[in-house]
């Protein structure tokens, strides 16, 4: 198991978001986490990279309990994790090349020539050649997402965490991003965790899909198992039918 969450609880003030979440992500697979807005999907991702700490329970990544790591160990682990933010979170005062190079500059002993070459390689991988000197504000939404992906893969991570990678994009760009996610798995062999509302996108990129509801894992299975599930709540989400949500509850 490459990423394991055991009985994770997390509250924000009086809002108990995670209530004993258990989740296992297998090496080399792409797992999509779906669920209603506010279910805590992004919170789960942030626990995996140590941006949030659980109130109780364990988050184990690559055999290491994230909440037990000191800063140095956590930074070392983070070099193995790429995080693609919902709105890319590119540094707007920096060029795209500098954005992609940020993680590389934290690798000891890496020469400038290697950094430049790796930046070009990553931008080529996401089909953004020739935009090194441009700034995030000069790019379209789809290009910004791809630049965020280029930054996330620059350090050759073992894990890629995608937070709503296709939200707000047109259908063609959604397909481009979906193909990139599949390509990252096939060409780089990364383990991917995708948080998404976009069920078609989840079908396209996932080996397994997990549904988060009420702070716990409601269901988890292969794409075919999810499509055939007769869980009313899952069906209501997949088919966009609120009446099924009421029946399920």
């Amino acid at each position, binding site marked *: 198991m490459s990423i394991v969450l055991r009985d994770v609880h997390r509250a924000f003030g009086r809002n108990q978001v995670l209530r004993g979440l258990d989740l296992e992500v297998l090496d080399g697979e792409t797992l999509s986490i779906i669920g209603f807005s506010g279910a805590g999907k992004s919170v789960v991702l942030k626990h995996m990279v140590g941006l949030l700490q659980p109130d109780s329970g364990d988050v184990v990544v690559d055999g290491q309990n994230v909440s037990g790591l000191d800063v140095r160990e956590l930074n070392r682990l*983070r*070099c193995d994790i790429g995080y693609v933010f919902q709105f890319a*979170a*590119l*540094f*707007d005062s920096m060029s795209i090349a500098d954005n992609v190079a*940020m993680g590389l500059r*934290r690798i000891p002993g890496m020469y400038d020539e290697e950094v430049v070459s790796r930046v070009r390689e990553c931008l080529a991988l996401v089909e953004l050649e020739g935009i090194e000197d441009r700034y995030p504000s000069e790019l379209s939404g789809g290009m910004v997402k791809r630049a965020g992906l280029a930054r996330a893969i620059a350090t050759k991570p073992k894990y890629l965490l995608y937070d709503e990678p296709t939200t707000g994009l047109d259908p063609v760009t959604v397909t481009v991003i979906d193909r990139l996610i599949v390509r990252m798995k096939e060409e780089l062999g990364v383990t991917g965790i995708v948080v998404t509302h976009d069920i078609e996108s989840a079908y396209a990129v996932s080996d397994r899909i997990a549904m988060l509801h009420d702070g716990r894992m409601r269901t988890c299975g292969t794409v075919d198992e999810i499509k055939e599930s007769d869980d009313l709540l899952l069906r209501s989400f997949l088919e966009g039918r609120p009446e099924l949500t009421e029946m399920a509850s």
Partner: protein
Amino acid sequence: MNGSVLTPVEYVGRWSINRVQSLGKAGYLITGALRALRNVEIWGPRLIMQMVSVGVASVPIALFIAVFTGIVLALQASYTLTGAVPIYLVGTMVGKSMILELGPVLTGLSLAGRVGASTAAEVGTMRVTEQIDALETLAYDPLAYLVVPRVLAGVFMFPVVIVLASAVGILTGWSASLMLLDMSSAEFVRGLRLFFQPWDIQFAVIKSLSFGLIVTSVGSFYGFHAKGGAGGVGVATTRAVVVSSMLILVLDAFWAVVLL
């Protein structure tokens, strides 16, 4: 009934809890920033850029204020002193006031607006657009990357800007005395040197250091804890300017009591 009685109590309770929480967050930020000092490889390359942004870019506004303060000081001193004491004391008043009080405090307040606001707005925008989270995921300590270079730049550059502004204020006071008052250079310089002590400049530098520390730390603190979107950044920026301006005045009184 209970609700109407308890509401003010609840309000005070909530206000108190928020203040204690803010103190806790401030303590966390300070200890984190002190620990982050050892990450020279992160803040070192950004220090010069921040010194330019905090110091060099603030020179025009600081000098603008100093020029007019010097002129007004000379004219008001002349208006107050003429006929009562020798006119050369205009030089004394201009020099002492600019070095000990008006140079540091007026420049400090103007920089609280310029530097404090830009620090809170920049860091706050990075917070609400998840750029600070992105820094963490890329194995950067955000305190070392964002806070330490800004605070060090404030500590190094505020004294430079304030000493420069005080000098320019004295020069314009001198010029105004020559052009608008019936004074000679010799009289002005005599007054300027009359009660001058090197300690005055050290006092101004100590005040300036503390102002630089406060303005950049408060701006970083409110930016770092900004919430929500543009509105949250606006609130953080406003608070940064108001709180750092108030703290400048408190520190001004503190140093006067302790050092004079």
